[in-house]
């Protein structure tokens, strides 16, 4: 393996390194305050969610409406691990907490992926409409389950009730810019590599024509489940990051309306475009933050904005196009030749 053998990759790596340094320096010099940093982190987390949902809905042509359910599952798993198992508090040194946090992120992804597998395996044998219905149901089930799970934690002398309808509070702030930045890049890279492989090609073929894909020797159930599980895994990972930046979780966050937010990001950015999902996730996260001062009115504005965008760009912002740096070099060369 020669990871830096081509110039494009080197430039991309350099560009990202510069971006990372610039943002870190701007933060240290307080040009970007903590509030702005928090928005940047949320943007990246939402982008992971949008891209992973795009893998399911945009690239494989399934229709999952329960992405927030997987997100909150991952969030709770990671939250339980850091607060209840490792008992990390604000006093724990960051260097000591970080390995535990990474472990919690991985566990969150694994559990969400497993849940995705258990749901996907029976349902994806049927046609896609059933997946929509089942994932809506799943979101509700998750909400109810987390409504019931509650714990007593010993917080150094005083006992606190956590979980249940009051949500899981007191989650340590561990999602630093560095951690989220790295996880964000890795997630995008892995999903991109999946899409530009024989497995990804099989998924896209299923979207394009299920019958033909089946008759060309592709095990369609296997690839639908694979895409669904990978999507759910990254939703779980994003959930773990989210839990450790907003520092609390609430069962309603796994509900239908939250899932719709991610669906909007996918459709707005463009079904089958990683770049589009990233743009839409960044844009919508920023817009809904900047509109915060006008309160509930922002949902109205948000809606109007969506209507306009859908009228002007029905295929989404990017359609199926990608930024060149998100396409492997070999694929890009093919298109230059023509």
């Amino acid at each position: 393996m020669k990871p830096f053998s081509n110039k494009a990759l080197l430039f991309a790596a350099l560009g990202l390194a510069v971006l990372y340094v610039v943002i870190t320096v701007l933060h240290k010099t307080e040009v970007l305050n903590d509030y702005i940093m928090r928005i940047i982190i949320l943007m990246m987390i939402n982008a992971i969610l949008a891209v992973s949902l795009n893998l399911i809905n945009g690239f494989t042509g399934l229709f999952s409406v329960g992405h927030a359910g997987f997100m909150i599952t991952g969030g709770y798993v990671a939250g339980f691990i850091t607060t209840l198992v490792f008992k990390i508090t604000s006093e724990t040194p960051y260097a000591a907490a970080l390995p535990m946090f990474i472990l919690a992120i991985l566990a969150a992804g694994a559990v969400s992926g497993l849940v995705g597998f258990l749901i996907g395996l029976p349902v994806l044998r049927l046609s896609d409409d059933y997946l929509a219905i089942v994932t809506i149901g799943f979101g509700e089930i998750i909400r109810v389950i987390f409504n019931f799970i509650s714990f007593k934690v010993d917080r150094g002398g005083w006992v606190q009730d956590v979980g249940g309808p009051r949500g899981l509070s007191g989650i340590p702030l561990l999602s630093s810019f560095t951690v989220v930045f790295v996880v964000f890049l890795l997630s995008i890279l892995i999903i991109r590599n999946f899409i530009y492989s024989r497995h990804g090609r099989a998924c896209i073929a299923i979207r394009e024509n299920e019958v033909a894909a089946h008759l060309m020797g592709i095990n369609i159930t296997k690839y639908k489940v694979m895409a669904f599980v990978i999507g759910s895994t990254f939703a779980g990972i994003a959930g773990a990051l989210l839990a450790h930046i907003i520092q609390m979780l609430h069962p309603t966050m796994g509900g239908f309306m939250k899932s719709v937010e991610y669906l909007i990001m996918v459709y707005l950015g463009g079904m089958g475009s990683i770049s589009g999902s990233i743009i839409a996730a960044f844009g919508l996260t920023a817009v809904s933050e900047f509109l915060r001062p006008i309160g509930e009115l922002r949902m109205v504005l948000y809606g109007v904005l969506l209507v306009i965008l859908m009228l002007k760009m029905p295929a989404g912002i990017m359609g199926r196009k990608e930024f060149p740096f998100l396409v492997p070099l070999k694929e890009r060369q093919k298109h230059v030749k023509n």
Partner: protein
Amino acid sequence: MLRIDHVTHYFGGLRAVEDFCIDIAPQQIIGLIGPNGAGKTTIFNLITGVYKPTQGKISFEDEDITGKLPYKITQHGIVRTFQNIRLFSTMTVLENIMVAHHYRMKSGLLSSLMRLPSFTHEEEDTEALATKFAKIFKLDDVLNVPAGSLPYGRQRRVEIARALVTEPKMLLLDEPAAGMNPKEALELLDLIKQIAIDFKLTILLIEHQMPVVMGVAERIHVLDFGKTLAVGTPKEIQNHPKVIEAYLGEGAKI
């Protein structure tokens, strides 16, 4: 090689195929003709596992394949094209052909995600193979063009190229010449004959254009309303009274 034993298939109360039998030896080219709605495509769907026959047995190379899933049957070595072209329209011609090589490829999920050398090599080999097939079908000038944007005749060629990349033993062609002008149809005929020899293929062919099917098939099965009307060489079929009746109707009796 392919043996269909007394297969009957119902759609609800409608008997689409009744008591159909066929025995195809390796490297034969067999024609399947009949008026619209005779059950020709249904037979293809039964062979390729899209439908499960109500009764009867289908075996391929002495192995029972009745009711197996379509992708399994493709992996046995039977592959088909479609009457109404089914390409992966937004994917390029090259990608369309590469997809069909999928189940012959071995790189696992992990090596794909990490872009290990084994993955890269296999991708390159598959691309070379797909390019080779595209050349045979004179598609090498449109490799990176979305398949859906090609003219009809060339889309047919992509479909056949895609089918052949699965490395089949048997090819089922469902009206390959549909929508082609006589010149294109005859070109296709030559191509089919050529690939049958080059790839040692057994071919079962549904076709409405009589010059094509008469020119290429060594034996023809005629279907009407799901029943086998006649079996014979092209010459025998052309003069068969029942066949003439099914296609042209009965002569008026005074």
